[in-house]
């Protein structure tokens, strides 16, 4: 009984941290740029594929792949922001959503063309491959690694936003674009930087996800993006703290739900999402905008 509960808990926590890694960039981009980026799932997918290719090229060095792969995706993110997204900030919500949606379609097919339509098995990471027994049941080391990385990313982002000059500028620009540009902040360049950073987070999420899921497939971003959306929404759109907590809640809910409620389904997570939107749309921490 104890083994069961502990392991269900651990599975939930690792799932939650995994979703958080993807949702972090999504919520940052929304918080600052006000754009809900469908293509974030594509960055996740591209991150996974680039990391995989570089890892293969560099003699199976996972860390080198993880370092360089997301940088390639950052170039893609830069081009998208600089030459497309920038021109729709002032437009209504549907244009922004559909623009990013168009990129989802394009990247899904491009990945299929470049890397082939079949799924690719992802190699496990040297040094993090095995499992450790916890209360008589094995738990993968890699999941423990994800459970450490998740909070570190959260802490890093928090420190950057709250404790650095850059963070203050970003926060200032997201709450009042005109005022920020009036005091000399180059808002367009700042937005590009934030978007590229968000892209990087999504791509790192993808690079880390490949060994976690064990597999790369064209269209792999679509299954994660809705989970990430839910997390971003229940955390209060644009709130990092909220998204972190939201990811933990969704992770635990799906783990406990799957284990203890036989009829469990995504239905419950969407009820939770609707309930939060109705009663506390600003999220758990009430960072109303």
């Amino acid at each position, binding site marked *: 009984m104890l083994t069961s509960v502990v392991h269900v808990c651990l599975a939930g926590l690792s799932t939650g941290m995994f979703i958080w890694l993807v949702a972090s960039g999504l919520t940052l981009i929304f918080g600052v740029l006000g754009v*809900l980026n469908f293509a974030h799932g594509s960055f996740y997918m591209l991150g996974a594929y680039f990391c995989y290719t570089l890892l293969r090229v560099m003699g199976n060095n996972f860390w080198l792949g993880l370092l360089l792969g997301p940088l390639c995706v950052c170039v893609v993110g830069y081009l998208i922001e600089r030459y*497309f997204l920038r*021109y*729709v900030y002032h*437009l*209504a*919500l*549907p*244009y922004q*959503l*559909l*623009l990013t*949606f*168009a*990129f*989802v*379609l*394009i990247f*899904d*097919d*491009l990945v*299929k*063309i470049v890397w082939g339509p079949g799924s690719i098995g992802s190699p496990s990471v040297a040094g993090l491959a095995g499992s450790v027994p916890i209360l008589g049941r094995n738990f993968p080391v890699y999941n423990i690694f994800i459970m450490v990385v998740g909070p570190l990313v959260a802490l890093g982002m928090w420190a950057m936003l709250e404790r650095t000059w850059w963070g203050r500028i970003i926060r200032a620009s997201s709450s009042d674009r005109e005022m920020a540009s009036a005091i000399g902040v180059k808002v367009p360049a700042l937005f590009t930087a934030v978007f590229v950073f968000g892209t990087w987070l999504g791509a790192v999420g993808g690079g880390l996800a490949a060994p976690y899921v064990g597999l790369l497939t064209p269209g792999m971003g679509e299954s994660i993006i*809705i989970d990430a*959306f*839910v997390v971003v*929404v229940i955390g209060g*759109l644009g709130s990092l703290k909220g998204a972190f907590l939201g990811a933990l809640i969704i992770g635990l809910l799906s783990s406990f739900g799957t284990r203890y409620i036989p*009829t469990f*389904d*995504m*239905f419950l997570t*969407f*009820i939770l*999402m*609707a309930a939060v*939107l*109705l009663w506390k*749309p600003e999220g758990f921490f009430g960072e109303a905008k």
Partner: protein
Amino acid sequence: MRKAFVITLCILSLAGLILLGLYGTRFALYLATRIMILSIFAMGYNILFGKTGLLSFGHGAFYAVGAYGMALFSLHINPHPLACIVAGLCLAFIFSLIIGFFCVRHTEIYFAMLTLAFGMMVFSLIWNLRDITGGDDGLVGISRAPIELGLFSIPIAKANQFYFLVVFFFVLSIAVIYVINNSPFGLVLSGIRENDRRIEFAGLPLRKFRLAAFVISGVFAGLAGSLSALLESNTDPFSAHWSHSAEPILVSLIGGIQTFTGPLIGSVIFVWLREIIERFTQNWMLWFGLILLLIIMGFRGGVVGVLSRIHRIILGSDTQSQRIA
């Protein structure tokens, strides 16, 4: 003079539809039927989206509810097509009323996310209530029984016969939506998009108007769904998925968002374009994405916007088309 012109064109269009029904090939009829069903879905959707500016990601659910309501009535109670369609509409009405009641409390992205959540709940229900909905297999074997009208009955089993039933609902929908748009109610809705504060100051119950627009568009989605169930003789759980809810948005965008004919023309282009793309490549997503990109970056008014711009250049300035472009 202009009015006469418009009326003439309407009559010509109708004549064209009838001629197509009489002489078109089976595949042309099938595509035309799908275009009309998508048009009904998109034009209804545009009452909410184009008029009040609310972006819903959940209208696929009402499409599906219409289809399943129609199919369940047909399979278990009575296969009379009109009765089944009415059953589908009633179910879509109930669902859109309940879901709309919650959703119209918000606007903008919060509204979009709320509709996404409710839409996915419906999707999940359809997927899991297997005894009722058939799960992922959907409901199959929906028959196109003849329409019994007391003294005589109209067969709709064949493609060209069914085509005319859809033409009937298509024309009816256009007429109803036209009347709604030009009624005082429609004018209030347009006012909501332009300035919702002003509507509130005028003492009008903003939420009720939004809800009404939501329900009307939901019922049209249900009509499209029930017609599609008859067309394909099955129901598809994926029609409730959010990706299907994005279709009327795409269609409106291609045609032109804030125009009456935009969704209609958008539907023609959407179906036709995809058919053409699929003829020369299996990577249709790539091409479709590129075209979408082009429209958003270059032709934001959609086809109707571009056309009216050209029109304006040819005919000189025209206040009405300026408003639309």
